[in-house]
């Protein structure tokens, strides 16, 4: 099975390599589309995109990237010298270690400075605070003296000061470089290679996570100006936790109500995605005319940008002019006519009359049940293509020989599906379902865009409640605790998955 999986992957690699020029062509065409469209812009009246905006943006992003690259380079060289350079003699060793300790201290100060700046820790005017601010203050002083001595203008002062700073560090590095000899390191390169991503993850994930834990034990809200005047204690954490389970999670809804709705949302969505995807994939996996066309058309809900799809479906759930109510209305009219025509036939006439009375336009926006159904419909519609494509990939890697052998042995279609297709599909299906569960659990853009959780938060799931608590009701400390609880739920699920599937073992080895 593994070899088949691999073969499938390798085949698609060849396909990729063959078609690389085409990818590039498409990229070129798309970029021409954008360039041309921005060229038309100045000739139309009152357009807001101008070359000035473009230039400013490029400058902004360029300097941002430049600063990141510079910072990374300094850190990379530092670790390069630790791993790959050996000082020549005793004096060199002392000098090298001194420079390394100083650089390490400088980096550490910057980290503490960053923590202080973003309110993770509060140093205020204490001695440590002053010490931590020293590098940055000296940087600012350097800028000021550059401007007053007319070496640099106000705009370029930051850049010039940055370059001077970097050059100073490079000189220190050069000293180490010239007083050392090369050395071999087995794992050094690996660490150097993962360093940039590691720093990125540290900055983007670990730090926010620490911050979240701290926030969870605070009373931060709009009243405390977020973290500026917030207070931190275990008591606040306990209070936040208590509010989460006994109070309201956003404005009206209670935790467990939303929790069960989230479970329902996830289970219904994933079930329909897998069943629908499996059905379509099985139909598409046989020799059939127009197969390519069907495949292309069926993938469309996945291809369309989610925001557009959600907004479009939102308009279709309109009570009068939306597609669904028009169709239901038409069905109702038809049923009414039929029931009138068949009124004389006992049983059938009554049956149609009952149907006509039951089936009809629905208030998708006001009725909580139908509002929830509407977001479910939207998400199921959006999610089936992805699943069917994944399952189709898995089905295609199953050899026809199994089925032929089974047919000779007289197995029915159901037996073939049960005993060949499902087991061989498992390596594809299990991770797809698990990821589907996690993604659906977390996916609330559909809900937010279609119903905004309404009416009365009756269609909110956990994540959308959390989003609202943070950015509509500004309950920051509470939201942080909420997020930690959601994370715990997902973490337990993940552990459960790891135990069941052993899926990670093969991937990390």
């Amino acid at each position, binding site marked *: 099975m593994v070899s088949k*999986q691999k073969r499938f992957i390798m085949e*698609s*690699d060849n*396909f*990729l*390599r063959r*078609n690389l020029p085409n*990818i590039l062509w*498409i990229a070129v065409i*798309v970029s021409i589309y*954008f360039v041309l*469209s921005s060229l*038309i812009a100045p000739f*139309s*009246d*009152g*357009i*807001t*995109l101008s070359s000035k905006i473009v230039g400013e943006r490029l400058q902004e*992003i360029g300097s941002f990237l430049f600063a990141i690259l510079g910072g990374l380079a300094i850190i990379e060289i530092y670790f390069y010298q630790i791993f790959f350079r050996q000082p020549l003699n005793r004096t060199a060793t002392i000098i090298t270690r001194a420079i390394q300790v100083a650089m390490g201290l400088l980096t550490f100060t910057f980290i503490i400075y960053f923590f202080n700046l*973003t309110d993770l820790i509060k140093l205020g005017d204490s001695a440590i605070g002053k010490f931590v601010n020293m590098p940055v203050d000296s940087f600012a002083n350097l800028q000021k003296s550059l401007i007053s001595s007319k070496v640099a203008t106000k705009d370029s002062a930051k850049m010039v000061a940055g370059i001077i700073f970097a050059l100073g560090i490079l000189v220190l590095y050069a000293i180490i470089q010239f007083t050392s000899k090369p050395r071999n390191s087995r*794992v050094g*390169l690996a660490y150097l*290679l*993962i360093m*940039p*991503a590691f720093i990125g*993850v540290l900055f*983007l994930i670990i730090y926010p996570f620490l*911050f*979240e834990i701290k926030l969870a034990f605070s009373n931060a809200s709009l009243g405390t100006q977020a*973290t500026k005047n917030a207070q931190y204690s275990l008591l606040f954490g306990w209070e936040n936790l208590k509010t989460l389970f006994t109070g309201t999670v956003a404005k009206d809804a209670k935790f467990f109500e939303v929790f069960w709705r989230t479970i329902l949302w996830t289970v219904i969505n994933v079930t329909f995605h897998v069943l629908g995807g499996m059905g*379509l994939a099985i139909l*598409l996996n*046989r020799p*059939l005319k127009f197969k390519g066309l*069907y495949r292309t*058309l069926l993938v*469309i*809900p996945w291809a369309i*940008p989610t925001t557009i799809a959600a907004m479009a*479906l939102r*308009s279709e759930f309109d009570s009068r002019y939306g597609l669904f109510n*028009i169709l239901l209305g038409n069905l109702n009219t038809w049923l009414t006519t039929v029931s009138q025509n068949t009124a004389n036939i006992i049983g059938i006439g009554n049956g149609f009359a009952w149907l006509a009375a039951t089936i009809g336009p629905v208030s998708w926006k006001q009725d909580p049940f139908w509002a929830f159904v509407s977001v479910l419909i939207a998400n199921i*519609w959006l999610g089936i*293509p992805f699943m069917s494509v994944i399952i189709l*990939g898995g089905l295609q890697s199953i050899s026809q020989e199994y089925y032929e052998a089974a047919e000779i042995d007289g197995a029915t279609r159901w037996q073939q599906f049960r005993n060949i297709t499902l087991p061989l599909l498992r390596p*594809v299906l299990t991770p797809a379902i698990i990821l589907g569960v996690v993604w659906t*659990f977390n996916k*609330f*853009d559909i809900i*937010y*865009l279609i119903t905004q959780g309404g009416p009365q938060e009756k269609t909110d799931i956990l994540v959308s409640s959390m989003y609202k608590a*943070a*950015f509509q009701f500004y309950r*920051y400390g509470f939201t942080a605790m909420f*997020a930690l609880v959601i*994370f715990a739920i*997902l973490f337990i699920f993940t552990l459960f998955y790891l135990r069941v599937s052993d899926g990670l073992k093969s*991937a990390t080895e």
Partner: protein
Amino acid sequence: MTTNPISRFFRWFFYRSRGDSPFKTILIHATLIIACVIAVYPVLRVVTISLRPNDTLLTTDLRIIPENATLDNYREVLFGDAEKNRQSDFFLWIWNSVSVVAVTSVISVILAAISAYAFSRFRFPGRSAGLIFLLTTQMIPAGMLLLPLFIMIAKLKMINTPLGLIIAYAVTSVPLTIWTLKGYYDTIPVDLEEAALIDGASRLTVFTKIILPLSTPALAIAFLFSFMGGWSEYLVARVVLQKNEMFTWPLGIFTFAQQFTVSWGQFAAASVLIAIPIMALFLYSSKWLISGLTLGSVKG
């Protein structure tokens, strides 16, 4: 051998496989056609709405090409409305989106291309812990780190700048890209590198001269993935960007829906303009996207 065109058509259509009866073939086609209609019709409705003249927007008509079809909505979206003295922000939105998402994708592909190589080829302390950690980050709700990130971005004075949004998008993009590329590197035979190493090439040469050229397709996939991920993102952008002139297009077209008179026509026209190139790109590259998925996260 019959030459009757009708029977020839039938024989062509009922191209037999595994002994399906004609009835079954028709049933399969009917199911697929219904599924296609369900998949495509709501999308076509957007086109319909975009073609409707403004006075007949609210109608229970179900036709795909409406009566008195007009391109007014497109003109208004692209060039603004001189009579109402309203400017068009369409190109600004596109530019904002492109600049943010492209930079995010480039950064994450570069970071991932380098570190995924280390994860794929070296055995060092902390390796599997790092990989599992990266996978765990995919389990974290996107909205979960949003609050601390938002406060961090605010403290760095990056609210309402593309840089803030780039940072926020990189959070989900970098780990995913590392996983995708690591999966791909794993499929490249190690023998190639070992041969080069024996011939005296350094690890760095091996990486730049062998691995990177071989994995260009995977790099393209990873770029596409992270581009698609950020391209139509709404919720994070709404938090980070509050000024009109910084809006990315999802925020932009949402303003059409928030005005007092919901401008469905213009919303639909803008959607069609945005969706067509992206959908074409997506449908064209869907095969590679799928292989990318089987490489990275969904790997048996």
